[in-house]
């Protein structure tokens, strides 16, 4: 093809303010985007992929971050040297953008129809009634039900998936030539992600737009990309047609990224259940009361109903489901953070729910939790050594002894000895999650409840943390309840899988059964929604999944 590229990025450099971890966020970046193609820009957090998009849209946080060199040619004209008015005409008009976080990307105080209409008002001279009609048409095009009614709704009435559709409708309003999508599905559930990816792909094909799709997920890349650009530390490390990059990656970094993509085809051998179960959850039910007041009845939300499962020593049970399915509710009930309304939770035969505070105390030691957000779950004003030692000290352990033990544990989770004297903010996300795990292990628990322990981490780091958890499980014969929304992760670490939907367990079985012969329709739709399942990771990069024998 000899078409001129829509977008021609030449030697783009973006400077970070002095004192940042590196001088250039984006370093001498060169690539092109053609009409009617999807270019996936892949990289981990901090690789500069979003910065590139922001530079194109004039969204860099001036004056700290600025373009230091190079050019951004849109149809042969440099966007960076255009006067502001001309740039504004491009933004939202010729080049549109969809953001990662649909929950916060819409103005909460403005009806969604008006937010879309604003774009039309700015870039077209349609009169108000025509704009309104166009908005309804756009909402219908992105597959939203009752578009006329929905245009009058405020964003808080819409689900995450619906909001992302509204964002897409907004981006499409003026028929742009280029659509930039910055991790548009990362914040969504798998099934919603699949719908949005399908929508984006069909709209792109229909309108022959050039699309720059930013993601960290190679599964998504395999699903939609025509060409792929891999970025690391602001530099382009690999760039080529999707089939080449996915199946014959050249650069070691690309190979490493692809190797750490979890894929569900592998599952563990069945776990040999030995002895009495460590934990039995029996018909646990929890109802939350939302709202309500002096004169108003509160709304009931059933977070968990009839939840039963068992965990044997050394077994890892995965609790899989989408947001709001009640999986965290069960996890928190077992740790004792929430009190269920009915049912029993038996730990080594003792019903935890029948105990009072004092009686429950010994079991707080035996059941420990690893939290989702490594940034929020560590007290920023305590030293890491103290954070790890705190639990045992609270249970009467000698402080000096506990600190020594803390250092051993930190070494065990792969941090060096000096870590104990430092503060949490000095560590990366993956390192903090290691600290969180060491903290849980300090109590010498028998059961570890890990609530989405890797979902806030980059893929390569995610792989390391999963390996660590598995290593610990084997060494200490620890039982684990592993809560996750990601089936690929669950496949990697779990012996038994419980699939949850709307507060109920819809399928419970060994990982092998669930992944090879799913019985429930919902499980099948979850498996079907995994992005990139048609893509086979190149043989030489397939790693033995943790825990497989």
């Amino acid at each position: 093809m000899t078409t001129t590229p829509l977008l021609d990025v030449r030697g783009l450099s973006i400077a970070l303010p002095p004192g940042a971890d590196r001088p250039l966020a984006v370093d001498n970046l060169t690539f092109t985007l053609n009409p009617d193609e999807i270019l996936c820009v892949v990289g981990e957090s901090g690789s500069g992929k979003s910065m590139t998009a922001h530079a194109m849209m004039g969204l860099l946080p001036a004056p700290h971050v600025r373009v230091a060199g190079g050019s951004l040619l849109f149809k042969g004209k440099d966007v960076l040297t255009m006067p502001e008015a001309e740039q504004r005409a491009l933004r939202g008009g010729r080049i549109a953008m969809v953001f990662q976080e649909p929950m916060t990307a819409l103005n909460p105080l403005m009806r969604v129809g008006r937010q879309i209409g604003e774009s039309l008002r700015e870039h077209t001279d349609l009169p108000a009634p025509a704009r309104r009609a166009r908005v309804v048409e756009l909402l219908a095009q992105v597959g939203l039900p009752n578009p006329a009614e929905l245009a009058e709704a405020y964003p808080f009435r819409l689900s995450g998936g619906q909001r992302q559709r509204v964002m897409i409708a907004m981006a499409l309003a003026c028929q742009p030539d280029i659509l930039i999508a910055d991790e548009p599905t990362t914040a969504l559930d798998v099934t919603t992600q699949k719908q949005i990816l399908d929508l984006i792909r069909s709209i792109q094909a229909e309108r022959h737009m050039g699309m720059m799709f930013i993601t960290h997920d190679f599964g998504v890349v395999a699903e939609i990309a025509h060409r792929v650009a891999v970025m690391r530390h602001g530099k382009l490390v690999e760039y080529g047609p999707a089939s080449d990059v996915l199946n014959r990656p050249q650069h070691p970094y690309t190979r490493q990224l692809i190797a750490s993509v979890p894929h569900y085809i592998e599952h563990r051998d069945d776990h040999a259940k030995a002895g009495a179960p460590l934990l039995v959850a029996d018909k646990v039910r929890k109802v939350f009361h939302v709202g309500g007041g002096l004169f108003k009845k509160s709304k009931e939300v059933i977070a968990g109903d009839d939840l039963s499962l068992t965990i044997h020593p050394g077994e890892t049970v995965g609790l899989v489901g989408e947001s709001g399915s009640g999986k965290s509710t069960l996890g928190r009930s077992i740790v004792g953070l929430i009190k269920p309304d009915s049912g029993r939770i038996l730990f080594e035969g003792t019903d935890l729910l029948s105990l009072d505070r004092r009686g429950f105390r010994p079991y707080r030691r035996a059941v420990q939790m690893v939290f989702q957000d490594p940034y929020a779950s560590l007290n920023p004003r305590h030293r890491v050594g103290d954070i790890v030692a705190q639990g045992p000290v609270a249970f009467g352990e000698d402080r000096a002894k506990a600190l020594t033990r803390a250092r051993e544990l930190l070494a065990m989770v792969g941090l060096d000895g000096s870590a104990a004297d430092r503060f949490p903010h000095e560590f990366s996300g993956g390192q903090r999650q290691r600290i969180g795990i060491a903290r849980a292990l300090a109590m010498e628990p028998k059961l570890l409840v890990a609530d989405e322990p890797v979902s806030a981490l980059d893929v390569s780091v995610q792989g390391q943390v999963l390996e660590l958890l598995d290593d610990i499980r084997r060494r200490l014969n620890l039982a684990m309840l592993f809560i996750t929304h990601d089936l690929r992760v669950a496949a990697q670490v779990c012996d038994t899988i419980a699939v949850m939907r709307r507060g109920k367990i819809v399928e419970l079985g060994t990982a092998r059964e669930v992944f090879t012969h799913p019985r429930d329709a919902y499980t099948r739709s979850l498996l079907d929604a995994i992005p990139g399942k048609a893509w086979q990771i190149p043989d030489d990069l397939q790693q033995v999944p943790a825990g497989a024998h």
Partner: protein
Amino acid sequence: MLGFAQLFASRLVKAAAILIAIVVMNFFLVHAAPGDPAMVMAGEAGAADEKFVTQLREQFGLDRPLYEQLGTYVGKIVQGDLGFSYRQQRPVWDILAERLPATLVLTLTAFILALAAGVALGTLAAVTVGTWADSAITVVALLAYATPIYWIGLMLSLFFSIQLGWLPAFGYETIGAGYTGLAHVADVAVHLILPVITLALFYMASYARLTRASMLEVRSLDFVKTAKAKGLSQSRIVTRHVLRNAILPVITVAGIQAGQLVGGSILIETVFAWPGIGRLAFEAVLQRDYQVLLGIFLVTSIMVILFNILTDILYGLVDPRIQVSQ
């Protein structure tokens, strides 16, 4: 809109309950005074022989059981009878009715001025953050916030009335001029300028600071990025997206302060000899005029409740999410 009516109704019911609690508290406050109310009244009336006190007790039903007295008291309040000031030899309601308009004119004007100027200055400061305009506004706001309000009042009146002779230094109207109609309105307005500016400066400073901080916070939110990506102009982004969201905390604080305005103007009314509720309260305290004080207490309580309801309604109108979560 049904949710809105429901919200309003439930607010009114709660307000009524609070009001009854205040009235009951009022009643027990009278009884907490040394001696019984009859003694107090007798003392205030200036005659204190035993027969007069007994007569008073019978007259006001003070020999009846407490609950019966409470019932009578509440009944009177409901009918709008706030009692009788022996000190001034007039019904309390008449005294309050005479003073209330002056205070309301002063405080409401000051409040509206403070809100408008404060939000405008705060917005300007946020938009020009880091420049000399921002620094100037921030410094002026800090000064106005930190300087004692009566000192500003004194200095303003010293400068504009005594030095320049432009504006009257005190009072509500020109005594003895006997203006009527528009001339009267103009006369009161001229008298109003200095006290209003003094009172407004303080509140304006806090709204300006609040608006600036809130705007800067909202400016970094995702939906502002969305607005920019739509190619909207700077002014539209600021008014439609940033300010609209940033104003919410300002409404909350303004609502709380609006309730206090009636009672909070004592200093200003004293400095400018403004014949309002604030000064009346001050005088009543000095003179131990309990009946008047309790009347003021009731009236200011009603004002606070009223402004709270108004704030809630306004909030419901500005933020659509409120009606649902309530």
